[in-house]
């Protein structure tokens, strides 16, 4: 299986592999291989997918076919075995051709069977490191290591699978190297000490899941069912509802499965998150990698005063679908007091001066009008947003921008000044007539897109001008990408006073 026989030439200047090179693939002591069980796991994954598809779609057709039972069974089992064999062989070849190496500056990965790929990721661009342990991997004591770099979709580096201890060692070494801590030859980076910050208990997780918008959807569906049964007098429509109900149950399950055993811890390497029931995930987000943060509250969480927190981290934004959405939750449900503890880890300095950060955030969460030093939308905004107009507002602290919105679903977005990418001012025809304008702060891709709607046009314009100055000043004063180097940068901790 050499590349040369397939396309007959070098790919992107990469020399064509000869079998001699494959044999010497690990000649350099720095290079390492993934765990040899990897092909088995990968083959199983493919078989599982085939099984699911078969169960969902193919079963009916198979049963309709006019064949004796044993032929069917033999066909299905034989087919599955064939699929398993083919993927196992392919994965084994892929495994042989995959190797990785970590030095002081970068991670190198070489992989691919037909299309060879060599990837080098700069460690000071590392945005997050995730250790994922899928259900089957846990049986073998294996884990996958995912390195997020901010390169857009498909930029993550996945080392699947490694022995759990090895994965942890690699993670520690990576984070230490990324932090700028150097170790002598042969010395191993120790696990950074971590301090537990909070834990989401199972009863609360269950209750919070029940108190979500999904429950309202379920209730609506149930009411719909009852009504149709009463009107039509038959239970036939129930069958039609089945897929919807299944979907809702799946939604509940996904949430529960993801947030099960959610713990947040603090370490010198940054924020540590651990969660997951079947697939366990342990995320590390180094300091300064959180680009923006959103605190939100579904309607039914108002009674117990619970909140949810999402963040934008550059690497996670590139991942699509539920995967990306799950990674960005840093608190699935928590009280205000827990929120304060979390904020102290994620954004240690909100720059609120004499006021306590929790006070400022609290006012942003529930306040209206000019509560807590917020600048809010003028009265004319009620014509565009009669319900939530009092909630549209912003506040600027020395270090961050806070955008408040939502009356039914309350929301507060926090963006550190140095993480603002660009700014925009928008005005539609109605806003123009009322002398209003909206300001948007652009952050890296993710669930948080901070925006303040319906400000007085003059306020919005002034905000745009001031915020770009503040962002520039904060950027100039920002710490280094290698967070442990921080001590060497003297006099760069706090930005100077800003022109108001």
């Amino acid at each position, binding site marked *: 299986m050499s590349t040369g026989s397939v396309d007959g030439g070098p790919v992107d200047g990469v020399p064509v592999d000869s079998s001699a090179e494959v044999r010497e693939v690990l000649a350099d002591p720095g290079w390492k291989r993934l765990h040899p069980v990897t092909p088995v796991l990968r083959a199983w994954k493919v078989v599982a997918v085939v099984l699911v598809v078969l169960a969902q779609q193919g079963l009916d057709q198979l049963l309709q076919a006019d064949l004796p039972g044993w032929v069917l069974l033999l066909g299905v089992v034989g087919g599955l075995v064939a699929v398993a064999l083919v993927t196992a062989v392919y994965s084994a070849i892929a495994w042989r051709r995959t190797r990785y190496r970590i030095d002081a500056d970068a991670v190198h990965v070489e992989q691919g069977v037909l299309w060879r790929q060599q990837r080098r990721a700069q460690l*000071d*661009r590392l*945005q997050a490191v995730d250790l994922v342990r899928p259900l089957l991997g846990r049986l073998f004591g294996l884990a996958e290591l995912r390195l997020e770099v*901010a390169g857009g979709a498909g930029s993550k580096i996945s080392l699947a699978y490694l022995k759990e201890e090895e994965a942890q060692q690699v993670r520690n070494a990576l984070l230490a190297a990324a932090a700028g801590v150097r170790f002598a030859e042969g010395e191993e980076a120790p696990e950074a000490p971590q301090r537990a910050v909070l834990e989401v208990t199972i009863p609360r997780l269950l209750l919070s899941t029940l108190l979500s918008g999904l429950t309202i959807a379920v209730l609506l569906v149930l009411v719909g069912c009852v009504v149709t049964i009463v009107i039509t007098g038959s239970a036939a429509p129930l069958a039609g509802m089945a897929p919807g109900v299944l979907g809702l149950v799946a939604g509940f399950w996904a949430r529960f499965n993801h947030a099960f055993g959610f713990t947040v811890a603090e370490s010198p390497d940054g924020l540590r998150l651990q969660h997951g029931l079947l697939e366990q995930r342990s995320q590390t987000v180094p300091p300064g*990698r959180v*680009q923006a943060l959103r605190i939100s509250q579904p309607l039914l969480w108002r009674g117990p005063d619970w909140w949810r927190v999402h963040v934008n981290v*550059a690497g996670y*934004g590139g991942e699509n679908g539920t995967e990306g959405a799950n990674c960005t939750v840093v608190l699935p449900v928590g009280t205000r007091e827990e929120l304060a503890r979390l904020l102290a880890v994620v954004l240690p300095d909100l720059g609120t001066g004499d006021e306590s950060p929790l006070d400022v955030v609290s006012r942003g969460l529930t306040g209206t009008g000019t509560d807590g030093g917020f600048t809010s939308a003028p009265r004319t905004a009620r014509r565009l947003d009669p319900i939530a107009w009092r909630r549209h507002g912003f506040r600027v602290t020395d270090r961050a921008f806070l955008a408040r919105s939502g009356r039914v679903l309350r929301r507060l977005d926090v963006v550190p000044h*140095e*993480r603002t*990418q*660009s*700014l*925009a*001012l*928008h*005005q*539609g*025809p109605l806003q*123009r007539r009322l002398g209003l*304008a909206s300001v*948007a702060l*652009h*952050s*890296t*891709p993710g669930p948080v*897109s901070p925006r303040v709607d319906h400000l007085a*046009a*003059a306020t*919005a*314009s002034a905000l*745009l*001008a001031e915020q*770009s100055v503040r*962002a*520039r000043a904060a*950027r100039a004063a*920002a710490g280094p*990408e290698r967070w442990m180097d921080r001590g060497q940068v003297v006099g760069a901790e706090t930005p100077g006073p800003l022109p108001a």
Partner: protein
Amino acid sequence: MSADAGEPFDPQGVAWRRVSPRLTTARRTVLAVFHGVVVVVALVLAALLTWWIALVAVAAVLVLAWRWWLVGRQVPAWGYAERDDDLLVRHGLLFRSLVVVPYGRLQFVDVEAGPVDRRFGLASVQLHTASTATDAVVPGLPPEEAARLRDRLAARGEARLAGL
């Protein structure tokens, strides 16, 4: 027209540069070709099948007239300004936008020219930051101006480069 342009979109001390008026012609050409094809197809179908398909052609002509007029207003509304630390781009008449892109945040700059653009001697410059929400495109620049802007942005971006 410029009197009620609205203060927020005209910050003080900013010298706006306009895009080339040739962009109006280019966009109108594209519109005319597109609508022309619709009209011809509709008329042919009307002749072959039933007469009322011709109404589609009438509608296409009306829409063309409206968009023709709109392009004439939209193109002069595009503007950009290079300041010391950031680039401003503004566009839109009904829905106005003003985007501020700091040079230090630029990840890369695209210069693009489609077949129609090239025919009219135009190119567009698009600015990319680490945020996909950054919507900063300057269309309708003469190629030499586009190249100048690109090089200037690249130089300034390098001088002020910051991490994410």
